[in-house]
């Protein structure tokens, strides 16, 4: 580990701390209907959209209506995206003449983008036309992110609501999220990326004639416009197969940090939005602090593990210590311009949040290093987490924490003056446990059945890690992969003669959808349940939810749940490998 490496990580996090209250405060204004500068410009557009979509946004939704709108919107999005991807041949902006991917792979891809996951069995540059990337995938990058934020905001409204059952209007929240938060940042961010070398073109692929007389075909495309929202919306689906490791997506050390700032900005800011909307900024900072501790542990372990190198390197006679002009460490599946520190930071941040973009090959990480992304997923994506989903799952954990804390000291558990009763705890517990249960059941099925094992690439415990990671990542809507695991066989570019692995594609799709929408329903039910409750003034006996004790308790609950559910699985894969120099 180097001083420059740590400095880079420190500078990154300092910027996040600085922008959290600014962006968080702005978003609180957006969702409480306070005037913002952009509404002067975009106000007419916003009202125009309401007229077109025939929605009366003055009418508030109760939790059931809010949930129904989310589900209907997602269904419409699913059908349209499936239609777009399956009719790829008849669209404009398809200079390479790509055919549609097989139905089973498309089924998985569509579900994956709808659920803000962006798990990719397909490879962008050999499968997708520019139209599919723009009108199909980029659109879902925006709106699936917006759905997550809307649900989080609805939960906050439930927590603060003094009377009545209203959680806000879903259509209004959706349109405002896109117009006032995601789109403006994306336009500026995309141009920043292009200014640093990310490409943005509709040209057909280039053919270069190299100086030694060989031909090189170079895939290009409208990359920056997708790259920016892929990160900002914690989606993670790369324009190219190698995601943010590809020089056209992530050309230098500065874009690497910029993309990480995009990833963390909204999930971090939402803690401040929460603080403002509940009327106590300390409440937001408490959640931020819990997330920060877990982030710091993750990045430290991953950085240290990758610096050490792998058993395969050492037995092959490669020396992995750092010396002048060489990064040392495990550079298998890493890019020179990011080195060990830039790769460790990127993949920690991307798996803390439900982004799942990668700038290095996770499959090639050391046993312990690869365990960090896994542990980040196993804690339910609450370390800043997905846009919206990070906050709403964290708030479910907060309910559990006040409940357990209340039991320990013998008080009635309450959150911000609202009594937490059996109904809320039941809903929160199930909401939290759905995701790990789905992941473990799917992993078990995929390991037990031959149809599941055909997707495995590496032998031995790494094969188990690949399988476990695949279903864990899809259930947590992350989308990063131990990418040897496959669900798509593509003999040549353009999809001719390609076929999907139906078992992996469909089991993954089920996993994706179930673990996204069921928790959303439970979160909205909690919001509805809390919305009607009276607020009791806090007294001396109230357990505070904005001090160090609570932060420690919250982290404890998260680790307890994660460890109890996933420890056996973690033992079988990464732990076995990190404790031995044995080769399989």
């Amino acid at each position: 580990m180097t001083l420059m490496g740590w400095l880079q990580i420190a500078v990154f996090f300092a910027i996040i701390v600085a922008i959290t209250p600014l962006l968080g405060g702005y978003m609180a204004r957006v969702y409480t209907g306070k005037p913002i500068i952009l509404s002067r410009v975009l106000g007419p557009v916003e009202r125009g959209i309401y007229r077109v979509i025939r929605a009366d946004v003055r009418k508030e939704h109760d939790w059931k209506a809010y949930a129904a709108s989310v589900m209907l919107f997602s269904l419409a999005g699913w059908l349209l995206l499936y239609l777009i991807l399956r009719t790829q041949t008849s669209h404009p902006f398809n200079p390479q003449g790509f055919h549609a991917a097989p139905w089973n792979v498309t089924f998985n891809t569509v579900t994956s983008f709808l659920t803000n996951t962006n798990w990719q069995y397909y490879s962008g540059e050999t499968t997708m036309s520019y139209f599919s990337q723009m009108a199909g995938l980029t659109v879902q990058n925006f709106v699936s992110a917006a759905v997550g934020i809307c649900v989080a905001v609805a939960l906050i409204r439930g927590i603060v609501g003094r009377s009545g059952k209203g959680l806000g209007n879903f259509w209004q929240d959706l349109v405002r999220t896109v117009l006032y938060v995601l789109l403006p940042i994306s336009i500026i961010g995309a141009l920043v990326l292009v200014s640093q070398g990310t490409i943005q073109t509709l040209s057909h692929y280039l053919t270069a004639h190299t100086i030694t007389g060989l031909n090189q075909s170079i895939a290009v495309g409208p990359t920056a416009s997708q790259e920016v929202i892929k990160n900002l919306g914690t989606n993670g689906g790369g324009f190219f197969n190698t995601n943010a490791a590809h020089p056209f997506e992530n050309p230098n050390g500065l874009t690497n940090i910029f993309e990480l700032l995009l990833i963390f900005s909204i999930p971090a800011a939402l803690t401040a939005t929460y603080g403002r909307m509940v009327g106590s900024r300390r409440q937001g900072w408490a959640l931020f602090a819990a997330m920060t501790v877990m982030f710091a542990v993750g990045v430290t372990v991953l950085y240290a593990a990758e610096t050490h190198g792998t058993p395969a390197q050492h037995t092959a006679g490669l020396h992995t210590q750092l010396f002048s002009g060489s990064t040392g460490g495990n550079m298998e599946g890493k890019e020179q311009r990011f080195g060990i520190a830039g790769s460790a930071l990127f993949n920690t941040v991307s798996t803390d949040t439900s982004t799942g973009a990668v700038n290095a090959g996770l499959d090639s990480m050391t046993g312990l290093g690869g365990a960090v992304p896994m542990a980040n997923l196993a804690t339910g994506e609450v370390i800043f987490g997905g846009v919206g989903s990070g906050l709403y799952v964290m708030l479910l954990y907060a309910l559990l924490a006040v409940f357990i804390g209340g039991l320990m000291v013998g008080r009635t558990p309450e959150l911000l003056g609202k009594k937490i009763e059996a109904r809320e705890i039941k809903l929160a517990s199930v909401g939290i446990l759905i995701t790990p249960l789905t992941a473990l059941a799917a992993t078990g099925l995929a390991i037990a059945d031959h149809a599941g094992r055909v997707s495995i690439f590496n032998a031995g415990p790494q094969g188990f890690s690949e399988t476990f990671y695949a279903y864990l990542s899809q259930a947590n809507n992350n989308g990063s992969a131990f990418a040897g695991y496959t669900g798509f066989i593509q003999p040549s570019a353009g999809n001719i003669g390609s076929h999907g692995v139906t078992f992996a594609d469909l089991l993954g799709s089920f996993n994706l959808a179930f673990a996204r929408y069921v928790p959303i329903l439970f979160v909205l039910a909690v919001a509805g349940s809390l919305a009607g409750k009276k607020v009791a003034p806090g007294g001396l006996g109230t357990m505070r939810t904005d001090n160090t004790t609570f932060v420690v308790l919250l982290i404890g609950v998260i680790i307890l749940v994660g460890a109890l559910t996933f420890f056996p699985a973690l033992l079988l894969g990464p732990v076995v490998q990190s404790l031995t120099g044995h080769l399989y």
Partner: protein
Amino acid sequence: MNLRKNAITAGLVMVVMIVLLGILYPLAVTGVSQVLFPGNANGQQIHRGGKLIGSKLIGQSFSDPKIKNGKAVEEEGEPVTEPDPRYFQTRPSATAPADNASATTFSNLGPNNKTTEEAIAEHVKAYLEMERPYDPSLTAAQVPVDAADSSASGVDPQISQANARIQAHRVAAVRHLPLQQIMKLVSQNTAGRTLGIFGEPGVNVLELNLALDQLTGGTR
């Protein structure tokens, strides 16, 4: 709540979003990028004599077709190539063929796998075979990790400074140029950390090789 009315709204919102975010937004960004940053937006193409040589950001192979008994060697219909000793070489690449910029892929080789060990050992051996004749003191312990580990994208445009300094011995000898001069060229084509903090220093192989050719006049 009227389910039917809400379903119509859901469909209409999706259509609006596709037009706004899927068509207007990316086309607007493309237009502005092409005007403000045409070089970057099109992939920092490098042209020589009217021909496209490559992209500054994309690594490429500097190899020649392998000739045996006056004939090009072929394997499964593809010509076999071998590294051209006159040029600096890029990192090992997991794509097929190497440095394939239209189908990038990770190696996905696991940390404790026999195949990983074999691949790395193979890369170390090939590197030593190529460089040791020109730098007899070179040992396996001195091989920089980036020279034996596959890159992530398969088209990493850079190599480490240590890797470039080792290869400089070969390039200098084959081209009959003083080592000092090649080392100077290496440092001229080294990109530091962005803003002095972010990322790692690296040497752009294509730019370095073009500078080499310019030094000796002409492209070959």
